[in-house]
């Protein structure tokens, strides 16, 4: 069943006096539970695409349905609500709040929506254990390694129980061993929680694990993703068993 449905998505920016067209009419459908990679060279429009899917930005034209609901034209506050309830983010730079410790960072999206603290704490501790953060619960971000920080970001993305997790180059700032661990962790969470993951990456290892790779070039989607999907399904099966 389709979770994300994009039709004819266009996005243009005003850069000084020139208009820059980042997306020239993108059609894309992502099913629930998918582990999908968007790839493309720098300036291809993949970050813009992720920003629109993540409701961090709005398309200039086209239709965006999330979980069957048209959300492309909602106002800023509605989009904030959608991000809070339905979408989790994992960033290349981790983007943790420096004054908060691990537990507080993970809980933050739920605290601002006024969740019951006791229930939230139980869920947070469970997720922290799942991502291997139990020994670091009261460490501040600057006391953690890159891999540990990305685990915090993953836990924060999952604590709201979102339908979609967007990861913008999540392994770009990590060494290869840590990157492998993070990819394995996300695969495990995808499998166990059924959360839909959408990545943008250059990292071939992430692509190896993706069950679907979509390519974007100069603001339009490239064809021929089926082969990659079949290939990644095979690799994925091998990794699981």
């Amino acid at each position: 069943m389709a979770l994300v449905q994009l039709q004819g998505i266009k996005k243009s920016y005003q850069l000084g006096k020139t208009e820059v067209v980042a997306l020239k009419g993108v059609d894309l459908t992502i099913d629930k539970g998918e582990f999908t990679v968007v790839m493309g060279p720098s300036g291809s429009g993949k970050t813009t695409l992720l920003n629109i899917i993540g409701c961090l930005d709005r398309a200039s034209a086209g239709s965006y349905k999330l979980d069957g609901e048209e959300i492309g034209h909602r106002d800023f506050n509605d989009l904030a609500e959608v991000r809070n309830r339905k979408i989790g983010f994992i960033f290349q730079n981790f983007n943790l709040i420096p004054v908060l410790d691990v537990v507080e960072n993970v809980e933050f999206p739920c605290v601002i929506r006024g969740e019951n603290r006791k229930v939230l704490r139980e869920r947070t501790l469970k997720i922290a254990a799942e991502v291997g953060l139990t020994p670091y619960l009261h460490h501040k971000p600057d006391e953690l390694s890159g891999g540990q920080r990305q685990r915090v970001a993953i836990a924060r993305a999952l604590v709201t129980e979102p339908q979609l997790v967007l990861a913008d180059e999540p392994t770009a700032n990590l060494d290869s061993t840590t990157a492998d661990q993070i990819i394995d962790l996300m695969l495990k969470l995808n499998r166990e929680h059924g959360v839909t993951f959408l990545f943008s990456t250059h990292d071939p290892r992430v692509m190896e694990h993706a069950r679907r790779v979509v390519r974007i070039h100069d603001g339009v989607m490239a064809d021929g993703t089926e082969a990659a999907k079949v290939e990644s399904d095979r690799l994925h099966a091998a990794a699981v068993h």
Partner: protein
Amino acid sequence: MFSLLQIAVRNVLRNKRRTFITLAALLIGVTVMVSIRGTLNGLQRSLLQNVVKGQTGALQVHRAGFLKNVLSSPLSLDMPQDAAFEAKLLGVKHVTAVAPRILFAGMVNVADQTIFLGVQAVDPLREFKVVPLRESTLEDKSQFASGKVADAMVVTDQLEKALRGANVPKDAPAAILAPDKDGALSGENVTLTGIMKLNMPGEKKVGMVRLDVAQKLLKMEGRATEYILAVDDIDNIEQVAADLRLALGKDYEVSTWEDVAAFVKQAMARQSFILSLVAAVFLILMLLGVANTMLMSVLDRTREIGTMMAVGVRRSKILGLFLMEAATIGALGGIIGGAMGTAIVLVLHARGISVTFPGSNVPFTIQPFVTPGYLLAVVSIAGFGALLFAVYPAWRASRLRPVEALAGG
């Protein structure tokens, strides 16, 4: 709302460096404001005491029209100086002591020097009960007050210097000359026993004689031109004035110290105005400091704001968060600065500051103090002011676009 406040307080407490920088401006400003206000309070209280307990008394009673003609010291506008009249004054609630005076203009003569002067004739023992500070202004109070020298007179040192020209022996006889009640020039021998200091600015050539000397000189036995009154609490003064007016009727006028020494009240009002001006400048400077650090903080935290927006924090909450952080810092600055200012004021109160007013040669001690109301006002102004001056930085933070904020602006 509550969780937002918690987050704001936590941010303020954990961002120690940033908080300290913002707080520093507030702390200095509030501390200085409290210290200056406290010192001024002490100064004004001393000024008031000096006037009320050293010169005018809390209240004065004259015959109607006296104050209008005070410069000519009219002897015709007099009143009885007897037990019955005094009983009437003392019968008014809160009045604790009364003392009669005669004010007149005359000349004093020593050898070949004759100088015009203003004279206050008083009953020393009763005078000092109403204006106790006055006793310390007399260099030779034993002779004047005790009555050992029946015709004793004290004068200001300026007058003394003018009278004691070259070759005038110390014990040269002196005389006081003045037109009596009927307008005929009259004279009495006096003995200059000492110097009186002035504790208020004003006429420098004045002297003081005993009431009975003046009554004899002016042919005013059993009469006085004014009564000064002491009250138990200066705050009751308006009530006492009203009761006195009722008891004495329209033939008499009752004045408070504020009416008699209007210049003191004006001086106090002027001091308070200048202080308010200084305080306002300080306040604006310190709040501009707050606004500046808040703006820096918004720039510094752009990515953090982007992260908050990404996880679903609404613009209104970002605005609220920054405002609450500013208000928290403002309140902290107000409370800590208020405490520091109070501590300084308390130390100064315990030690006392010795000063002499211009136009006076009696040094006295200022004991600074602050009122809880003023402290509360300062804390509120610091809190609300910080909130107000944080509106623009907070608005800037809330208007950031998530995508740009995440990229670090």
